[in-house]
């Protein structure tokens, strides 16, 4: 695991329109090397690599939190409409109000939380059935997509740019965006890791939690809120990148028990790695335009998820 992470990070720093050799990297880390390489490394590669790790970690942890807290294997930020809600709010603000970009994360959190809550309220019927949550979430997402499409039609010239953002990607993002993501996803990530004790209780039956004297619904709400903030923080910078939050917890569940203290951190690590690899693959083709990151994650995550479901069917049948 550690080896794969290191290889991925090094590769991510090396590859791109201007490729570095490991020797270049070593020289750069020693403070030597050409100015152009130095700028490329510091201003583009490094922030982008860190951003990929952080965005992936946030999305995967958010997915793990949501799936665990709702005990619903299909509750992920994208399937419950949180991602679409956050993206929709950002598009609304950027096309109609043209506010400062610093407000986007806040708008994303508001939109994501609003749509997420609405999804769960609508899906609620004597408890939350996974299918109902997914269906309500997909419906809410379509609503958001419809609103975004409507606005894109009006926005005209900006449409191409917004369209690329909506496809998801972290190309050309620098330290400013990284700082933004850290502000919004760092604290909730840390908080989730620190509160893992209560998260593990929520994975059990509600009665267990109550007998331990824990306010189950309050903690559930708390963790959902953390997940929403993380997701929104990631989406405002990287666009609606799908599948990470859905797939990663399924993979980690095969590796480690959900009950383990290390499960949430494992989600974060694996999510970060997966997104880093996805971003590497997005950069790989020698085309003028990079492949949008959301496309790569969908291509990686979709088949994996289908395979997983197919296996489960086999086992059940």
């Amino acid at each position: 695991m550690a080896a794969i992470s290191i290889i991925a990070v090094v590769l991510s720093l090396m590859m791109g329109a201007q490729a570095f050799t490991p020797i270049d990297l070593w020289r750069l880390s020693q403070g030597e090397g050409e100015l152009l390489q130095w700028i490329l490394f510091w201003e583009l590669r490094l922030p982008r690599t860190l951003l990929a790790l952080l965005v992936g970690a946030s999305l995967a942890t958010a997915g793990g939190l949501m799936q665990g807290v709702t005990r619903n294997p299909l509750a992920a930020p994208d399937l419950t409409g949180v991602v679409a809600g956050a993206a929709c709010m950002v598009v609304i603000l950027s096309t109609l109000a043209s506010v400062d970009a610093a407000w986007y994360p806040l708008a994303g959190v508001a939109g994501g939380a609003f749509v997420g809550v609405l999804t769960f309220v609508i899906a609620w019927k004597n408890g939350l059935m996974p299918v109902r949550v997914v269906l309500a979430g997909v419906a809410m997402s379509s609503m958001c997509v419809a609103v975004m499409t409507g606005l894109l039609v009006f926005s005209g010239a900006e449409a191409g740019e917004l369209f690329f953002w909506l496809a998801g990607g972290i190309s050309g993002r620098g330290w400013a965006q990284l700082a933004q993501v850290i502000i919004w996803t760092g604290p909730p990530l840390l908080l989730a890791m620190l509160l893992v004790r209560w998260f593990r209780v929520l994975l059990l039956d509600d009665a267990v939690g109550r007998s331990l004297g824990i306010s189950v619904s309050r903690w559930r709400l708390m963790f959902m809120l953390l997940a929403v903030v993380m997701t929104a923080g990631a989406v405002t910078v990287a666009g609606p990148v799908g599948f990470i939050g859905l797939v990663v917890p399924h993979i980690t569940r095969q590796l480690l028990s959900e009950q383990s203290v290390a499960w949430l951190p494992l989600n974060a690590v694996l999510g970060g790695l997966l997104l880093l690899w996805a971003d590497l693959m997005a950069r790989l083709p020698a085309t003028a335009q990079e492949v949008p990151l959301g496309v790569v994650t969908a291509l990686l995550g979709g088949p994996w998820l289908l395979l997983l479901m197919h296996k489960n069917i086999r086992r059940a049948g």
Partner: protein
Amino acid sequence: MNKVGVTPAVCWMLLPLAIVLGLLLSLSFGASSLSIEQVFGALIGNGNEHGERVVWELRLPRAVLATVVGLHFALSGCMLQALSRNPLADPGVLGISAGASLLAVMLVVGASMLPIGTSFNLQGDQLLAWLPWGALAGGILAALGVYLLSGSARLTPLKLIVTGVVCAAVLNAIMTGVLALWGQAHTETLVAWLAGSLHGRDWHHLWVILPWTLVGLIGVVITLRPLGLLRLNDEQVLSLGLDLGRWRLLVLLVATLLAASAVAVAGPIGFVGLVVPHIARGLVPGNLPHQLGISALLGALLVLVADLAGRTLVVPFELPVGVLCALIGVPAFLYLLKQQP
């Protein structure tokens, strides 16, 4: 559903009336409004030149196309719901629309890459005539893929829907990738198409889709009896001596054909196929032939009204009909989800 059924006869009388009324309103409202007398005058051929051109060349083909497209999506959804015994099936949810759009987009992109001057140009009628075939192939591939991936014979409604949603997401992502790599100059047009739009559609589009409507309707009539039986559980159907697999495939094919041909001319308009059959079931519970017919009429009415609203609500802009259908359809869908036990 706990609604009181309306007698089918009432629906059969009221819906066509509503559609005719909707058509008349579509003809008279728009960028330049015409009075009802002007519309009638233009229709029977003694109006002024301006009115005749607006009615015959712009609004009539578009309005008729809206009804045809609505009919396609609604029938397709109704058949898919009966086939999968799943009230939440729909060409959009099952990935059929996404597959159809993907191949249609690839066809357009591929055609644009051919050198200029070849007989196969982007705006040409040839491409338009080919689009339904591409969309059909994509739709069938997607439908079969979803069907097989969700465990074919042992499929449960949940598995089918979730597989469909995942496949649709993957296909949409690939489509976004194709569009992004293609370059940004053309994305606006295609984004408008992908939103589901009837903007600028004329008689050509109508002639392209009508043969498919005919084939689809014949298919519906052929599969009507087996479809009614497919709603029973498998043992009952098998004991009646029906070849389950073959009929299922045929129904799937007809439903895909209807949806894909509509996607080819109007883009993937969502939620019509999902919501309309529910309303039809609420109106005439239990009677499949009536449900299919009423679904077709309701779908036509819904798209017609949505397109009219899209054209007139925010003048001088135009909202894509797919956006309005989603804005109408999603709340209805969520309400139905809430009503379900």
